[in-house]
């Protein structure tokens, strides 16, 4: 896995935000919520989760909508929506730099931003991407160049309750054995992501204003 780095609470207008860097890939996420929701989107017994994805170049198209949907579904399983009926939780994701393992970085930064905003969650999620290259080797956290040459790209999202799969997104062809291998490898490394969340929040809520 590549190096992870985060900045929390950099923006002033939103309730919580996180800028996550995984390798060269960088994503900023802002969260508003629980807040008022448009009357036609209101749900009587739970909160409405909305995700807006902003790519750096050009206008949003089909691919961006698809991306939004994947992240929205992941976030909705994680958020305790029944705690805030008839309200909205808005998540805005801004692309800063896409250098591979992009979906994983977006989901992880959304999770950190939700933590920073203090939204009630059922569990945390960690996303890990792996790539099966043409020799059948599994590469964790591939960069965009590796992604281009690879055979299949798999992104897994795990929860931290019993480490079960929340979301899977794959591209390309692979055998069922390879899928199992990828799952177990990603599950192992997802624990490091959870550790990173824990350390980041510990540091954020620590008493000393400046840690040496």
């Amino acid at each position, binding site marked *: *896995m*590549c*190096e*992870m*780095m*985060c*900045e*929390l*609470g*950099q*923006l*002033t*207008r*939103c309730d919580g*935000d996180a*800028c996550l*860097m995984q390798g*060269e890939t*960088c994503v*900023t996420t*802002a969260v*508003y919520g629980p*807040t*008022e929701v448009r009357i036609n989107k209101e749900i009587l017994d739970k909160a409405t989760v909305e995700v*807006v994805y*902003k790519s*750096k*170049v*050009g206008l949003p198209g089909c691919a961006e909508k698809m991306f939004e949907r994947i992240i929205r579904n992941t976030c909705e399983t994680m958020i305790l929506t029944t705690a805030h009926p008839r309200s909205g939780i*808005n998540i*805005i994701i*801004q692309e*800063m*730099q896409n*250098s591979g393992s992009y979906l994983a970085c977006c989901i992880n930064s959304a999770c950190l931003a939700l933590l920073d905003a203090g939204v009630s969650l059922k569990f945390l999620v960690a996303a890990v991407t792996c790539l099966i290259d043409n020799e059948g080797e599994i590469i*964790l956290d591939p960069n965009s160049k590796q992604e281009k040459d690879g055979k299949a790209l798999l992104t897994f999202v795990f929860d931290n309750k019993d480490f079960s799969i929340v979301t899977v997104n794959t591209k390309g062809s692979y055998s069922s054995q390879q899928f199992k291998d990828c799952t177990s*490898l990603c599950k*192992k*490394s997802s624990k*490091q992501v959870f*550790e*990173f969340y824990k*350390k*980041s929040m510990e*540091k*954020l809520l*620590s008493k*000393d*204003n*400046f*840690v*040496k």
Partner: protein
Amino acid sequence: MRETPLSNCEREFIRKALGERKRLDGRQAYDYRTLKIAFGYDRGCCRVDLGQTRVLAQVSCEITSPKQQRPSDGVLFVNVELSPMASPVFEVGRMSDQGVEINRILERCLKESRCVDTESLCIIAGEKVWQIRVDVHVMNHDGNLIDCSSIAAITALAHFRRPDVTVDGTDVIVHTIEEKDPLPLSVHHMPICVSFSFYEQGKFLLVDPSDKEEKVMDGKMVIGMNKHREICSLQVTGQMLLLKDQVLRCSNIAVVKVTEITEWIQKALENDRQARSNGERFGFREAVVMDTVTTNQMNPEKLK
């Protein structure tokens, strides 16, 4: 979501403080907030912080057919996005009046001043030219979006490199970065917008108004200027009347501010150039201040 209005007492407080030549954040009337420029991993990507206001700009290019009236000129396109990330007031998809205003001012400032040489963007006259697109994303709104966006846009344009092309008869070969070094745009000068807000019918003026100061102001003047003291655009909005010497005074202040900001941009560009050529690490991560509680870093162990 609708904007939370500023309460009357807060409004009064700000006005009264201005009468005593004081600002909420302790700045002097002609002071700018701290300016920070960070560059991304990609060429033509930069993030500009002006105090708490934060803007991300990305320049991109593609080959299109030119406009019929100007067959040998490239196209410069500016797009400002007021993302809901910046403020809950901004909505997705719909261009608000404020968004249109910023877009138009930026477009006028960058296009009409001809700071980017569009003729050098021509590949085959009348058939193929480069279209340069500047996307400006507002990430946090704390006032003075125009200045911050204009700094981000011109910095990103100066940082951008476009792929080299070879014309072989009617065929155009676009070279990848590995084949041939990409070329910078020819940026002749750097127009930068400086905003002034006016209070009490132009009696008081402030440079670089914050969000709250913008809510209280009577009107605003934006001067686009380059470091050669050439005014590239000038716009006055709001319900107020200005005297001639007020406009002159503002343009004199703008001269000083533009010189400072241009120097700062050049310095930032030079730092990034050196980091790239010396093989040091570059990108947004280099701009992160690591010794605060809000940041964290981890090097995960290798898994087998």
